[in-house]
């Protein structure tokens, strides 16, 4: 076996490992500790802030609860590389629907594993059509 072949094989292995590792970058650890993945929550609100950052991005929606109290949905998203769509898809001030898994912490309004839709139900973002899209 020539050194060239071995070098090429090693490089191929490294490259394969690289892409395998890069693909699920947004799913690098379990959200089950903070969020209840057996539960489903849907909400509607106005996009107040979008923090595109690593290791996790955040989307904040202004909304009101059943009693008319002002609340803020805090939606935990993937890392910055997974959020390119948000710049156009979630403009500040837009009214959007969100569906996902609720935070386990009582009294908070956290969501993860979120999919977004416009107010008319049109899906937004790369997860649109996958998972649980919010109902119109």
């Amino acid at each position: 076996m020539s050194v060239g072949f071995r070098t090429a094989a090693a490089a191929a292995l490294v490259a394969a490992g690289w892409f395998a590792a890069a693909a699920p970058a947004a799913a690098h650890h379990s959200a089950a500790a903070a969020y209840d993945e057996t539960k489903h929550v849907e909400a509607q609100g106005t996009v107040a802030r979008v923090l595109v950052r690593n290791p996790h991005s955040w989307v904040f929606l202004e909304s009101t609860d059943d009693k008319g109290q002002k609340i803020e949905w805090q939606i935990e998203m993937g890392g910055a590389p997974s959020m390119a769509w948000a710049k156009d898809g979630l403009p500040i001030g837009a009214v959007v629907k969100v569906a996902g898994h609720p935070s386990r912490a009582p009294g908070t309004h956290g969501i993860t594993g979120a999919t977004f839709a416009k107010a008319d139900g049109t899906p937004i973002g790369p997860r649109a059509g996958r998972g649980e899209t919010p109902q119109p």
Partner: protein
Amino acid sequence: MSIWLESTAIGVWTRESPSIWAYPTVLTLHTIGLGVLVGANAIIDLRLLGFAPRLPLPSLAPLYRFMWVGFAINAITGALLFAANATTKSTQPVFYVKLALIAGALVITGAIRRAVASDRSSSQQPARPAVLSARRLAIVSLALWTGAIAEGRLMAYL
């Protein structure tokens, strides 16, 4: 201090760049550096504990070069990852536990290196007390590096 660090260009880049070459690459390199540094350490520790006994200890000395490379990679990528989220990480107790475990592990690594350099096991008559203390050092080394990795991982959860 932490706020300033987060506002530096390199901190902002690591935290906010949407590029796969920013945070994902830095984090991947941090894992590779960890593998090289702790892997090379583990080879020597396991050898001291009796694995692969036919390998002469002095022949493993070049592994210390790999450890330095791994450590350098992780010091640099670790600084980047800290700069990206300094206000969060500087308030996490596990972060300081991790740094303390690494400091302790490095001290032990230095002590083992001296033991490896002065090893006379090739002369068939190893000095018994020296070998025993080397085994203890090896166990402590494995424990400290394992703990440092665990604390590093826990920073994502606690």
